[in-house]
């Protein structure tokens, strides 16, 4: 087969459908570009809101915006920038680059990418629509209760935030899961962890942080929405709740979030800087160590947002020290970069300009961050403009500057042209000067006592000239950003044509074609070093020539190499789905759910939920040997490639479900935390009275579940061990046992006398019940579907991969059941007896 034919056939398998069919695209390059473009559109909305804020504050006593509109504007500015710009754009960048850098053709769950994108798009539009309608959320982007609660925010604004943002978060969590599994399992053969591009370490850390960091916020949003809609008093001190529980859950997400944004940006710096220094990173292992350490420590800082809420000084001191400690891995990164520049020969091109801007601004923001970690100083400047200045230094310096640098650096991949300094340097100058003009003196504004979120001020406060200069700076900054956009757009027309690998980079994405092919690489090379394109520049020709592995396409499947997580040894071939309408359909139905909840049409919501569930299960049906995926063929064993993953006991689905269960576990632990917190730490908490929950019912229910899970385990192990002819019947028994468990569990819930609207603990108890019922129900339905798949021939004694995939879910369901029984039912009784 000629090379041209090979590419032709590859394109036929991998290209999106034409025209409207593009909406069914699942390819990572297409989806990630949509993420980034949508994010940039939201970014400009966020900038517009910022300009409204700066205009209002330019002079004392202005009346451009009234207090209410101003509140909507600052709330939406923060919300858009965080949830609809920063995170999705970085995810988009990661989704675009990671598969190309690790030498594979797509992410492992392409339909999930598309689903995530549509959830983001629809959720974002729903949130944005509230602003257009003039009913946007108005309690600040961190939505502190009771202000955001039903009594003080009676309109639908808070609901838009809680429901819309939770909807958007589906995309973050799904990107987190999929990036984790992709990085761990689909690196080109030979690319061990030690040879992985440094960017992927950063993204792996970010992805895992999303997996653990977002669930607390999702739980908090669910609780607050339940409080608003169903009067369940989780945060109401009069009923034993506590508004501080919201703050804990929010910042448990909110602080890691800062590093979720910073790490990919630092990863960009670590990727670009060595290229322009013309040498490998001087301290690859130092950086990896810093990234891992940052990932962990950043989960131990959240209380530093809460130093003024009256937490005991000892606890504040723990968090204060931890907040300062996190400066060490960050400083290590800065000095590794510096050592790289020091020992290299630096070419100073446009992306480097942005990296230098990043360094100055980020170091400045880092320093004020260390200052803020000092408790007494924080008591003074907390909630003032000093803090606003600080976090804009960290976020704009630490995220936007590297991101723009990255945009220029990877632009040739999109346009085939090289960016130039001509307009670019002036745009940089405007942004840099505008930024510092806005925010440098804003530190002083804060020190002179200007609090956050005031819509106006009086002249005698002495803040006039500072605000005016910040406003002028703000407009310079915005002009600069528009100029960057203009430069990029003009570049597509006038930029000089780029040679292959225009910056002389070391990473594989430059071998994917300019613009990259829909399948990235016609053949997958074996990787021997950390710098493939420096050490074997011939790859740029040999990869598209089909000289390496996985170059066959006659089967018509989209295939990736599946390699071992640590060593990168070649193990299997992952077959992944082709374009599909299910992501769009399911996301649209979920958007319908979101809207029906917003408009409080609860009956409708129940119907939509059922539809969504049915559709999601229908989507899951197209897996394994289904005709749209990888139907069985006669000559499978003839192939010289490793076996297809669905014919083995290990594949992306198994890893995906495990990472998903980590996120689920984080949500569950947040719930247990809430339960224990309300009971022990909260000032109005008391020992929960759980005597009305029938223990015999719960225990019997648990025994049924345990038996069911043990039987499932037995099935799975026998299948792995070589086959079990009666496993289909056993699977029915598993389902029957679990249905009994479910029945008893629901009975126990209904029979217990929970005072849902007057006791916070009881309300938490109900959420726990619902959580258990959801998981047990999920396990049963999924296993019932498996019995059906057995009949269809998708599962058999030799095709038992799907049985293995579900096994972790069963174990998890069993685990949370017994942990719940212990912590929710037995522990209070035991405590009382003691």
């Amino acid at each position: 087969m000629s090379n041209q034919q090979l590419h032709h056939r590859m394109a036929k398998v991998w290209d999106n459908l034409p025209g409207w069919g593009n909406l069914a695209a699942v390819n990572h390059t297409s989806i990630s570009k949509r993420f980034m473009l949508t994010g940039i559109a939201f970014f400009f909305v966020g900038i517009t809101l910022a300009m409204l804020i700066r205009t209002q504050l330019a002079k004392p006593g202005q009346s451009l915006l009234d207090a209410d509109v101003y509140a909507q504007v600052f709330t939406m500015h923060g919300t858009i920038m965080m949830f609809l710009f920063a995170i999705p754009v970085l995810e988009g960048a990661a989704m675009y680059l990671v598969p190309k850098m690790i030498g594979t053709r797509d992410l492992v769950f392409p339909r999930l990418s598309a689903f995530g994108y549509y959830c983001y798009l629809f959720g974002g539009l729903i949130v944005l629509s509230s602003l257009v309608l003039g009913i946007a959320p108005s309690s600040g982007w961190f939505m502190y209760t009771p202000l955001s609660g039903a009594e003080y925010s009676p309109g639908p604004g808070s609901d838009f935030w809680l429901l819309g943002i939770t909807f958007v978060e589906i995309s973050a969590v799904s990107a987190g899961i999929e990036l984790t599994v992709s990085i761990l399992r689909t690196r080109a053969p030979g690319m061990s962890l030690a040879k992985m591009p440094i960017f992927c370490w950063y993204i792996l850390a970010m992805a895992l942080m999303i997996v653990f960091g977002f669930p607390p916020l999702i739980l908090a949003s669910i609780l607050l929405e339940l409080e608003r809609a169903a009067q369940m008093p989780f945060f109401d001190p009069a009923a034993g709740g506590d508004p501080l529980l919201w703050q804990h859950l929010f910042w448990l997400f909110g602080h890691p979030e800062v590093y979720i944004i910073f790490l990919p940006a630092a990863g960009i710096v670590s990727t670009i800087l060595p290229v322009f220094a013309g040498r490998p990173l001087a301290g690859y292992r130092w950086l990896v160590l810093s990234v891992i350490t940052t990932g962990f420590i950043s989960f131990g800082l959240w209380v530093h947002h809460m130093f003024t809420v009256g937490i005991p000084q000892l606890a504040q001191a723990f968090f204060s020290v931890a907040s300062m400690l996190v400066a060490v891995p960050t400083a290590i990164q800065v000095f590794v970069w510096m050592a790289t520049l020091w020992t290299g020969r630096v070419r100073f091109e446009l992306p480097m300009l942005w990296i230098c801007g990043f360094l100055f601004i980020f170091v400045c923001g880092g320093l004020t961050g260390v200052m803020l970690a000092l408790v007494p100083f924080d008591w003074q400047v907390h909630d003032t403009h000093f803090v606003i200045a600080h976090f804009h230094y960290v976020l704009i310096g630490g995220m936007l500057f590297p991101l723009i640098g990255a945009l220029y650096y990877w632009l040739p991949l999109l346009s085939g042209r090289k960016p130039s300094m001509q307009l670019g340097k002036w745009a940089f100058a405007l942004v840099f000067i505008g930024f510092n003009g806005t925010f440098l003196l804003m530190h002083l504004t804060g020190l002179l006592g200007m609090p956050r979120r005031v819509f106006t001020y009086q002249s005698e406060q002495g803040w006039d000239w500072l605000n005016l200069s910040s406003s002028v700076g703000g407009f310079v900054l915005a002009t600069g950003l528009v100029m960057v956009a203009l430069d990029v757009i003009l570049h597509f027309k006038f930029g000089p044509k780029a040679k292959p690998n225009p910056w002389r980079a070391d990473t594989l994405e430059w071998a994917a074609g300019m613009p990259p092919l829909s399948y990235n690489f016609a053949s997958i090379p074996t990787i021997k070093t950390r710098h493939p394109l420096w050490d074997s520049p011939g790859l740029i020709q040999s990869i598209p020539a089909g000289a390496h592995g996985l170059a066959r396409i006659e089967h018509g499947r989209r295939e990736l190499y599946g390699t071992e997580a640590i060593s990168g040894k070649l193990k299997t071939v992952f077959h992944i789905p082709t374009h599909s309408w299910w992501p769009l359909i399911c996301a649209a139905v979920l958007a319908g759910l979101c809207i029906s909840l917003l408009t409080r049409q609860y009956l409708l919501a129940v119907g939509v939920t059922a539809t969504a569930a049915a559709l999601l299960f229908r989507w899951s049906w197209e897996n394994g040997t289904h005709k749209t995926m990888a139907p069985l063929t006669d000559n499978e064993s003839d192939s010289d490639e490793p076996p297809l993953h669905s014919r083995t006991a290990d594949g992306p689905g198994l890893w995906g479900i495990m990472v998903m269960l980590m996120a689920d576990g984080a949500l569950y632990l947040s719930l247990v935390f809430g339960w224990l917190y309300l009971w022990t730490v909260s000032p109005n908490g008391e020992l929960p009275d759980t005597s009305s929950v029938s223990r015999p019912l719960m225990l019997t229910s648990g025994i049924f579940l345990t038996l069911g899970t043990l039987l499932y385990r037995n099935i799975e192990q026998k299948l792995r061990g070589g086959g079990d002819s009666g496993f289909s019947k056993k699977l029915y028994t598993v389902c029957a046992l679990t249905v009994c468990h479910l029945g008893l569990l629901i009975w126990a819930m209904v029979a217990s006398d929970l005072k849902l609207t007057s006791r916070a603990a009881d309300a938490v108890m109900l959420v726990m019940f619902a959580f258990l019922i959801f998981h047990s129900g999920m396990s049963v339905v999924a296993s019932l579907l498996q019995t059906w798949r057995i009949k269809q021939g998708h599962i058999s004694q030799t095709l038992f991969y799907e049985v293995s995939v579900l096994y972790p879910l069963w174990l998890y369901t069993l685990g949370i059941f017994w942990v719940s029984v212990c912590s929710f039912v037995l522990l209070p009784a035991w405590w009382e007896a003691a």
Partner: protein
Amino acid sequence: MNRLTECGVLSSALLLVSPGYGAPLSILDPAGPAAKDIVAVWWAMFWGGTLVLLVVTGLWLYAIFRRQRDYDEQGTKRVLRTMVYTGGIGLPTVSIVLLLVFGIPSGHSMLPWPGDDTLRINVHARQWAWEVHYPDEDLHFTDEIHLPAGTPVDIYVTSEDVIHGFWVPRLGGKIDAIPGKTNVIRLQADKPGEYGGQCAEYCGQSHAFMHFKVVAHSETGFKSWLTTQREGQHHE
């Protein structure tokens, strides 16, 4: 690229000559021991931070623009180790130790230690006013706190509705007013005078106007003020 450094120098200079430190809510114009401690820590951090910023940026630019030469593997390792050990680990460690050595005791001294002889005032925040109550005298005021200068006063802060932030910048740090919870903050004004207070936590529509004032009297002045008020409020 010297623009970066220039910008840093220029702004520090601006901060120094800035005339506005005397604003009514200025942290930089402290009038009590807690606020004074904090502002001392701030200036130390400011100069330290500026120094670090300039040195790091300077080194960075030097690394880029100096005359470059080739390094072998050993040489690279030496540069890397020096930089990581001094800049990456040493610099933040020393800064953190210094900060904590000065910072923790200063925070310690601001706490409302039990057993000290202090005046108690209750502040009950609501949308959008501060209800002030003197429990010993059973006196009530709105948006106005009177206290004797030179003595520590413990203010018990809670809220009726949403979360507010109680803050008198010239006297000391802030504390949140949270429904269902009472927080205590110790403040002291060194001299008689009037000090501005402001809600710091966003609390709805009129947050921007949720001011109050603290009036510090001399010791005798405070006693006579108390007497007058007692007569006024209890005989109405």
